């Protein structure tokens, strides 16, 4: 696509998300959500392949419907409380409609069905935009609403998300679908903390975004679209090791950074005396750890029968723009557990 049009659309995407984050009035929030949806449609569908166009269409329909639902809830809130202010959600019905719209936008269960379909039709750079950047705006809205009204719908949806994220990713062979279900599961962990302490959720979400971006960039570099291409991929060996470490960190194994995403919610739940929901989260994350380990296994723990010249790659195409970004993001997954004391400021 034309470079100027590309730059214009990326700028309006960033502008749309910033408009959502920085405004106090429901109308610019709706405008920003629609602007960010519209401006990535050409970015997702510029290759005219039918898979990308189908994924773009599904994405647009879901996001447009949920943005309309959000505006509907905001106008209902205006009717009941006479205010367009974000901080004045007074009635449960308008809160419920707005929260339902945000749950559809985020892809939390029970509204998660569009997410693996959309992600599996797009190339990896578009996947990064959909799975990481586009979640910032609705997650920000959900967490700022949780500051005002705590409702148990978030806990129910997050438990469902963690279980769906675990069981959904079990029988997949496409790496994009696996990462989609892992994203659903992680958002479940993050939004459940929002019921108790929403500020902690912001930090967990940031951590998850950085981890996920690193993994998706490595997958983009090596074109790892299916499990069968994991063992044949042409990456620098250090990238294979770091990819495995980043995936195990996403699964939440203790000395790695992703353990923060699991231990902080557990601390928050048990400090609030809410021990009943902990087994659901543990079961969901255990099942998702299985398919992370399956990817790690196929990447670096087995050696499939192949020509021996393929095993060590001297020439790689890895001098790309994403390599320094990967190198900056990966240390968070390794040393991230040292950031644990920050969270004790909030508890």
């Amino acid at each position, binding site marked *: *696509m034309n470079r100027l*049009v590309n730059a*214009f*659309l990326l700028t*309006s995407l960033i*502008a749309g998300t910033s*408009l959502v984050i920085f405004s106090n009035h429901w*109308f*610019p929030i709706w*405008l920003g959500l*629609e*602007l960010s949806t*519209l*401006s990535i*449609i*050409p970015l997702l*569908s*510029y290759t005219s392949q039918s898979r990308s166009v189908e994924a773009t269409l599904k994405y647009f329909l879901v996001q447009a419907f949920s943005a309309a639902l959000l505006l509907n809830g905001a106008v209902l809130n205006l009717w009941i409380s006479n205010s367009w202010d974000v901080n004045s959600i007074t009635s449960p019905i308008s809160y419920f409609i707005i929260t339902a719209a945000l749950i559809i936008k985020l892809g939390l269960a029970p509204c998660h069905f569009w997410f693996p379909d959309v992600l599996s039709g797009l190339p990896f750079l578009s996947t990064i935009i959909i799975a990481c950047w586009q979640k910032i705006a609705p997650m920000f809205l959900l967490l700022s609403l949780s500051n005002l009204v705590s409702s148990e719908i978030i806990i129910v949806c997050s438990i469902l998300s963690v279980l769906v994220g675990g069981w959904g990713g079990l029988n997949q062979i496409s790496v994009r679908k696996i990462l989609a279900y892992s994203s659903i599961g992680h958002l479940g962990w993050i939004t459940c903390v929002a019921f108790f302490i929403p500020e902690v959720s912001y930090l967990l979400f940031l951590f998850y975004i950085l981890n996920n971006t690193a993994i998706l960039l490595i997958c983009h570099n090596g074109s790892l679209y299916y499990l069968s291409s994991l063992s044949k991929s042409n990456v620098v060996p250090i990238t294979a090791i770091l990819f495995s470490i980043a995936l195990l960190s996403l699964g939440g194994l203790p000395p790695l950074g992703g353990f923060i995403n699991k231990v902080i919610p557990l601390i928050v739940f048990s400090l609030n005396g809410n021990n009943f929901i902990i087994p659901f989260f543990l079961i969901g994350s255990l099942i998702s750890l299985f398919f992370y380990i399956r990817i790690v296994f196929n990447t670096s723990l087995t050696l499939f029968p192949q020509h021996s010249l393929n095993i060590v790659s001297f020439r790689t195409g890895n001098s790309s723009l994403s390599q320094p970004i990967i190198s900056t993001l990966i240390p968070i997954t390794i040393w991230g557990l040292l950031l644990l004391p920050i969270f004790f400021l909030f508890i």
Partner: protein
Amino acid sequence: MVFYLFMLLLLLGSTLVFYSLSPYYAALGLMISSLFGCVVLTSLGLTFLALLLLLIYMGGMLVVFVYSSALSADRYPMVSNLGEVVLLFLLLSFWVLFIFEDFLESSTLFNLLSPLNDLSSLSVLYDYGGAYLLVGGLALLVVLIVALVVSYGSSLLALRAS
């Protein structure tokens, strides 16, 4: 009482949009619903908004929609299911009327005496709300560019139906 008739005709227009078999009847339904939306707005006193809706929505957008659906629809469209549409409309309206029966008795809702309600708040849009107009205009520019990029198609010369 006539007010509710206008709103029911609005509902008929929207039922025609989503339930008809051929896009020509859907465009007819859009016309009906926008026309009666304008009538509803006028009877509430918001005459400027009604005029705006009529000119821009029906006079601009709908004409373009009808031309583009004539360009892209079936060559021999199916005859419409007008009887089913009217039946669905009657069912919906009776359902709504039975739910909101108490609501219909009250008559203190409408302020029909001040027809300048919308003009006094429209001036705020241009004064304190100038940033809204700017951002809205920029968003519409993005929509235009997105529509052009998406519909670029295989022809590099013009936007044609190929």
